[in-house]
């Protein structure tokens, strides 16, 4: 997928009204429309719409409090939106009749604090859902776990417990745990924010490889450099709204909206 640079005039400032057009008539993997969410009196998401195409990596930037994590967590209903629609592979996932557990197996989530199960080793962290949720027999689950660990480069750590792993290794196991389910889309909630700087690269490397393998990814993160080189689209959120979105080059070199400009100047990553 090429990253075309469009002129500012052609690239619209998206004010959260129109989701991106689908490519070749296929519905986007993930489509969010008109999402609203309040915590008490604080309105955190004000009519957010976004779609993610197959194999796209969409990066979401914004200050803390902009609603980006909340939006991400709404996508697998860890937060329940007050209103709005969420479609996964064309099917609605909001609504009472939806089998949420089944839906969540199609969505992989990676958390800032890894959330590995401390009482299980790496292999069993991965096979737990395979065996209990997907009802796979032990051999099949073990094989899938081994494959997932191989993809993140941690085959030899299958028998290690989280406490024996570094932060970067734990996060990679967490990624393996998510990809073992062979989800349609992966959600990343600040995957490297809790890591020591020297370990960040390992995790980003895994994410890069996932992208190259064609995984659809929605990433909330501060890793600007990574966004510039790997993302297909960058979305900037402020105050509960999507304020601007477009290809990374365009957003980083020529931001249109003043919130985007202010944010980028504070975080100015070396070009």
């Amino acid at each position, binding site marked *: 997928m090429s990253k075309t640079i469009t002129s500012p005039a052609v690239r619209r400032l998206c004010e959260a009204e129109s989701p991106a057009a689908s490519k070749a008539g296929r519905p986007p993997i993930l489509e969010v429309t008109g999402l609203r969410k309040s915590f008490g009196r604080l309105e955190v998401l004000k009519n957010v719409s976004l779609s993610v195409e197959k194999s796209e990596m969409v990066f979401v930037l914004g200050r803390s409090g902009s609603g980006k994590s909340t939006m991400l967590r709404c996508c697998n209903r860890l937060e329940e939106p007050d209103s709005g629609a969420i479609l996964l592979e064309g099917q609605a996932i909001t609504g009472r009749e939806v089998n949420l*557990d089944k839906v969540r197996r199609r969505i992989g989530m990676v958390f800032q604090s890894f959330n590995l*199960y401390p009482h299980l080793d790496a292999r069993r962290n991965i096979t737990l859902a395979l065996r209990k949720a997907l009802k796979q027999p032990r051999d099949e689950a073990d094989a899938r776990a081994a494959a997932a660990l191989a993809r993140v480069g941690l085959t030899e750590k299958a028998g290690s417990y989280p406490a024996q792993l570094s932060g970067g290794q734990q996060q990679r196991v967490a990624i393996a745990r*998510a990809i073992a389910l062979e989800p349609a889309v992966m959600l990343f909630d600040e995957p490297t924010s809790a890591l020591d700087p020297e370990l960040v690269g390992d995790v980003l490397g895994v994410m890069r490889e996932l992208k190259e393998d064609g995984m659809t990814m929605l990433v909330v993160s501060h890793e600007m450099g990574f966004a510039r080189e790997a993302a297909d689209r960058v979305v900037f959120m402020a105050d509960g709204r999507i304020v601007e979105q477009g290809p990374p080059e365009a957003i980083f070199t020529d931001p249109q909206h003043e919130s985007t400009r202010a944010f980028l100047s504070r975080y100015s990553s070396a070009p």
Partner: protein
Amino acid sequence: MSNLDRFIETFLNGAVLAKYTPAILSGVWVTVELSVLIVIAGTVLGVALACIRAYRIRPVSFVIVIYADIFRALPPLVLILLAYFGLPNIGLSLSSSAVLFVILGLTLGAFAEEIVWAGITATDKGQWEAARSTGLGFGQSLIHVVLPQAVRMVIPPLTNRAIAITKMTALGTVIGVPDILNQATTAQSFSGNASPLTLAAIAYVALFLPFVILSRWLESRFSWKKG
């Protein structure tokens, strides 16, 4: 007779000890049997109730909390006497051992429920989120992810409480359970000598001291918070 001789004669009389050791041993057997049953029943009950409470069904949780409060606020001896003397008059005749088992089992169940519940609520929310986001159901997440961590976290207070309650099997004496203390007081009044009591004390210490030391070791080992 010197003071030491008199002391030994009164509290450590070899002949009396030998004569009543079999009786004390049968009491030991009763105490151990009851203790094991109480610990198993009470712990299982407590864990089960805490799990039920996790589903947050208001009326059910309410009943569980009431039960836990009452059995933690009342002295077990009151409940034992109530059950032992009151139940036969409404047609429910239980042996004194059965009464002891039921009351102490329910008491341990109440404490265990509160302790395990505290462990469940203290488990990091992220664990729930991770489990649910891989498609595990609520019950599966509870049993395979949260409960194992909660229980590990609360082993020290749980062991302490279990020890405290199994020591209360001595209360069975009051309603005629043939436990160590009962055998000892009977032997003491028959023999007119305090040695059976000494033997009883030694028997209890021999039974429970290992567990007290175990719980001390557990506390030091588990003094870190869960990972």
